[in-house]
């Protein structure tokens, strides 16, 4: 589903990703762990196509397409969802409006008919209930006045509504208390653990992996994957730290 080959990227002229390769197949959940500054967020933003993140080498194939040739909104329509570490506030635009525009823009790009207001609200209600987010919150402006935990729950509601093939979740666990962590973890499982979907979970800590069991764990250090393994690798990292494992 996602094949990253020797990816190199820089931010403001500074090389961050230095030859990263990764192969994610349908039905798999991959965790990417690593110390601060390893390039974890850069990987997410580069896949999402954020301006300022310049690819200087390598290829990324997503479902057989050249992902890097697509505009950010086209990547979303192709089935990529990027979960943000710090979801952006958009005053004056309600979540309901934002998500309906987003979903219908994606459907249009894929040649599908738009959802009516009623159909969309039914879908939004269902996904909000799944993530235990009060539907009234979706009537408020996007992320404005939301706590850290509410923003992350709202990210997962968005993921549920947009129904991507691949979710790249950047530090989705940061800013979550224990209860919210469980809700978000269960949400990821409910939405994304399917034979035709895949997840790239970018995280600092083992704790989210207690709820979302990865099939593969990779250690990212200095812009490259330096070690890959099964779920036991995350536990080893937690025990002995990145320096020992990455050395």
């Amino acid at each position: 589903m996602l094949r990253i080959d020797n990816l190199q990227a820089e931010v403001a002229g500074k090389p961050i990703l230095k030859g990263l390769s990764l192969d994610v197949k349908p039905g798999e959940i991959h965790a990417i762990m690593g110390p601060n500054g390893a390039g974890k967020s850069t990987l997410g933003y580069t896949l999402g196509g954020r301006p300022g993140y310049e690819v200087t080498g390598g290829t990324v194939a997503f479902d057989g397409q050249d992902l890097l040739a697509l505009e950010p909104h086209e990547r979303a329509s192709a089935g990529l969802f990027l979960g943000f570490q710090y979801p952006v506030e958009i005053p004056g635009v309600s979540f309901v409006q934002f998500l309906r525009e987003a979903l219908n823009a994606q459907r249009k790009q894929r040649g599908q008919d738009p959802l009516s207001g009623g159909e969309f609200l039914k879908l939004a209600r269902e996904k909000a209930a799944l993530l235990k987010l009060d539907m009234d919150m979706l009537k408020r402006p996007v992320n404005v006045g939301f706590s850290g935990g509410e923003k992350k729950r709202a990210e997962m509601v968005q993921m549920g509504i947009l129904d991507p093939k691949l979710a790249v979740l950047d530090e989705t666990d940061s800013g979550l208390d224990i209860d919210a962590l469980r809700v978000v973890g269960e949400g990821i499982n409910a939405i994304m653990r399917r034979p035709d979907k895949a997840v790239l979970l970018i995280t600092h800590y083992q704790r989210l992996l207690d709820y979302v069991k990865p099939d593969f764990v990779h250690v990212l250090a200095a812009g490259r994957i330096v070690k890959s393994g099964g779920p036991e690798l995350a536990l080893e990292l937690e025990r002995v730290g990145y320096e020992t494992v990455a050395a």
Partner: protein
Amino acid sequence: MTEALAIPTTRDEDWRYADADSLASADPAALSNWTEWQVAPGEIRREYRVFASSDDTAGLVERLRVRVGKGGRFELAIVNAAGHYARVEVEVTLEQGAHFEFGGVTIGGGEKVQEFVTRVIHAEPEATSQQVVRAVQWGRSTGNFLGRIEVVRDAQKTDAGQNFKAILLEKGASANTKPELEIFADDVKCAHGAAIGALDRQAGFYMASRGIPPELARKLLVRAFIADAFEGVSDETEQTRLLDAALDALNEAAL
């Protein structure tokens, strides 16, 4: 109408950001026309205007002078999308306890110069006024707001507010604002604020990451931005009509 038929120049304080070429070729009679209205005591009057975008190179100068009687209320909302030079001047005198609510949007590109020039006179105590102006400019266009608030000596308990924000969608565009407060009473609240910036690029990428293409993202962000100006419009249908009229001008932009 006994005003001198002289053409103002940009040396005149109230015309400092005006388009000099348009002024030089203007008809002096047109420049000294005032539409005059009275809002009777206790009456509510609502006026909504759209000066639509056109390729017209002619100037547009609209001047409105309104007196609002005791306890009366005057709501005015205007979309200024016209050009080449489009100036809307409003002078409002408030009697005791009267209220003036103003929402204005300038929106345009090319070489357009669009401006609101307001003068709100709090002539008696306890009157209130609220002015919100938003400018959205691209190309080499300019959006201006010159707002003067005068509070006379006896106009205690005046509460006057003025807020201007501009977003410039391209580098060559500009916006100017000049708040002027003349306060001769001592128990008065007068607030003003201004900010000029660009569209939030982070919000743009966030929207793109959800599948919203750049033109639609820009439209949603601009709509949210200018909506502030029409929050005081109590009729929702009118509110939508004004917003849509403003966004029509944006649709013409080749950005």
